[in-house]
């Protein structure tokens, strides 16, 4: 075989691969995701005026499952649209928003003025950027102890468990809170997130707010300096799996993962009696939050982790959509507006089955008004 035909074949191979992939494109852009048993298909048909085009969004993994459901429902209603949401993490979402790589970002924390993020985002948008609370994800303290279906914990006990100061399930401190439970002598295995996460940060904020003497580190997305006992696992999914497969395991994980993993979750007592984690109790905590706006239509929330309201579940993670108030490309602006109108409106009803809490009515009204102002 000669060299010419040999290289010819190689070139042909490469060209073939590209050509082949090119061919595969025909007629597949139609809605392919026909779903036999889709969850809550409450695709709002009326509220969102359909704009067309495509959007790129990315950020928080905590709201990824909510986004997926919303995108599915929205695309089903507005067939000319394509929205992608990548759960790459809040930090990546914000930095890619600032680098003009994403049309809007999902983030576990609002843009940080101290970090210069507010100014940078405004510069990129050419208008102030808005933080819009959209998804409330309660953080569950999930556990697996044989025979214990009901467990009450206080912030101080949670802190001591996570720092390794309580090491067995029948420790007097736990017993004191759960007189009726038959607690075994199983050692406690703590699981936390090894990767940087807003969930870690909010959980640590909760511990620090309620037990400043016990939990002394500065809350951070990185769990490295918290000094947690036990083992760090990558991703919510990793923590979920680890708890589910370890007798005596306990960890913090977004409620949606506790629900999908069918894990038991502890009732938390902040001082006003034990509160079970439900959509309502989580929404009650969000309703108590204050709006600490950066100005204009911005809706940054300030959560009070130490609140002692009865019936409000205190370990809360609110994730935001970070958007421009005025987009340079009006087509992008109208699609963002159209999509977020849906998510802030009818979309909220789809959340509960996924393990998220809907926005409380008062905040929802403000978010809707802010979305209305996007252009």
């Amino acid at each position: 075989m000669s060299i010419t035909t040999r290289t010819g074949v190689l070139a042909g191979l490469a060209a073939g691969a590209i050509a082949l992939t090119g061919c595969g494109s025909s007629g597949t852009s139609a809605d392919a995701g026909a779903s036999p048993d889709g969850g809550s298909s409450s695709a709002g048909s009326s509220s969102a005026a359909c704009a067309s085009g495509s959007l790129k969004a990315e950020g928080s993994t905590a709201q990824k499952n909510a986004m997926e459901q919303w995108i599915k429902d929205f695309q089903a209603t507005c067939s000319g649209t394509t929205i992608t949401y990548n759960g790459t993490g809040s930090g990546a979402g914000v930095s890619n928003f600032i680098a003009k790589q994403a049309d809007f970002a999902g983030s576990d924390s609002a843009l940080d003025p101290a970090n210069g993020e507010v100014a940078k985002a405004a510069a990129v948008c050419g208008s102030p950027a808005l933080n819009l609370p959209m998804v409330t994800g309660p953080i569950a303290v999930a556990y697996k102890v044989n025979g214990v279906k009901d467990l009450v914990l206080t912030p101080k006990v949670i802190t001591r468990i996570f720092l390794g100061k309580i090491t067995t399930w029948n420790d007097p401190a736990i017993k004191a809170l759960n007189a009726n439970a038959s607690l075994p002598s199983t050692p406690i295995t703590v699981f936390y997130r090894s990767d940087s996460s807003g969930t870690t940060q909010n959980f640590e904020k909760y511990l620090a707010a309620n037990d400043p003497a016990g939990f002394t580190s500065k809350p951070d997305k990185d769990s490295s300096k918290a000094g947690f006992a036990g083992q760090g696992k990558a991703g919510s999914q990793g923590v979920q799996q680890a708890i589910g497969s370890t007798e005596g395991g306990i960890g913090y994980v977004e409620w949606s993962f506790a629900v999908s993993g069918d894990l038991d979750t502890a009732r938390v007592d902040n001082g006003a009696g034990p509160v079970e984690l439900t959509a309502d109790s989580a929404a009650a905590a969000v309703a108590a939050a204050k709006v600490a706006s950066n100005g204009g239509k911005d809706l940054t929330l300030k959560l009070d982790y130490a609140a002692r309201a009865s019936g409000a579940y205190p370990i809360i993670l609110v994730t935001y959509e970070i958007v421009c108030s005025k987009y340079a490309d009006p087509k992008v602006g109208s699609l963002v507006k159209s999509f977020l109108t849906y998510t802030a409106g009818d979309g909220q009803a789809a959340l509960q089955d996924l393990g998220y809490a809907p926005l409380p009515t008062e905040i929802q009204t403000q978010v809707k008004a802010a979305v209305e102002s996007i252009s």
Partner: protein
Amino acid sequence: MPKETPMIDRTPADTAGPGRMAGPAVSDRPEPAPDPSGPALRVDRPVVVPVVGSSQPAGILPDQEPVFGAGSLGGRTGAGRFGDRVLAGLSSGAGAFLVLLIGLVTVFLVIRALPAITSDRSNFLTARTWDVGGDTLDFGVLPLLWVTVLISLVAMALAVPVAIGIALFISQYAPARVARPVAYVIDLLAAIPSIIYGVWGIAVLAPKIQPLADLLSRRAGWFPLFADHNVRGGTIFTGGVVLAVMILPIITAIGRDVFERTPRANIEAAWALGATRWEVIRLAVLPYGRPGLVSGAMLGLGRALGETIAITLILSKVSNTGAFSFSIFNGGETFASKIANNASEFNSPSQTGAYIAAGLVLFVLTFAVNAAARWVVNRRKEFS
């Protein structure tokens, strides 16, 4: 065969062709210097070009007489010289491109890492803290370095002997109809994405090898390397085993290829002397394949040191506050898994710089290991 140069004259005309390959070896490889006044046997002759042509199987040299016309001897501007210049230029250009590329990467890494390293409040190399979220940086890479090295050592210790064994099995022991499918299946392993290795490692493999780990730490737990740290599943040991499986195909594939290329003459000479099969391997095959094997092992090691996603999924993170742990039955983070665990939340240049600095150490580490391997190979070459 026309008798023009002394070199050609030595070879009888009837051995021209396939037989020449196994013919008497010329002792020294001619140093093909770009200098036109090279060794006498490098005769530039444009006329040859069309003849060693496409229809002829490469490697079999044509023996048409008219080719070596004396008149063409002086041709200095022929296609041959031009072709030589092109290929030499292209290939050294590619080399220079690589140098430039790595230069750029290094500059990128150093520029990003340097501010973080200089503003580090701890000793960058020996500290065990990692606090880069706030305004001040306080971090060190010692635990990362230790875990990275340890996990790679576990992987290499398991993979290299087994890979040599399989490569020998495929190239020297197994009949072709067994060897080919086996080689193929092992190649396939290289195709499995690392995230799948990670999932398999933590969910399927880890529970199965836990009893072995328990046994070792119960019996030999006094030895720091095997001390029990109450980490189940996501240990350095599990990670090392998975890495070993991951790098096995790389080392095996290269080992197989170099062993298969052992000159028949060497092997037959050993057989003729009455050597057993093992002696043939020890005396002819292994020495011949050693540099290639080292290359393969280094590629595998590079993969092990830098493996990101599988290790991230497998290794449990543990707190670095207690006594320093030497154990392979503890969790930890490697350079790559540390970066991957946090890459999604980089939100300031100084913070990013700290992680890039960790990447820089990995870079240096890999290079040091490779340089050492090259040095060993070259030294052995000189002595043999």
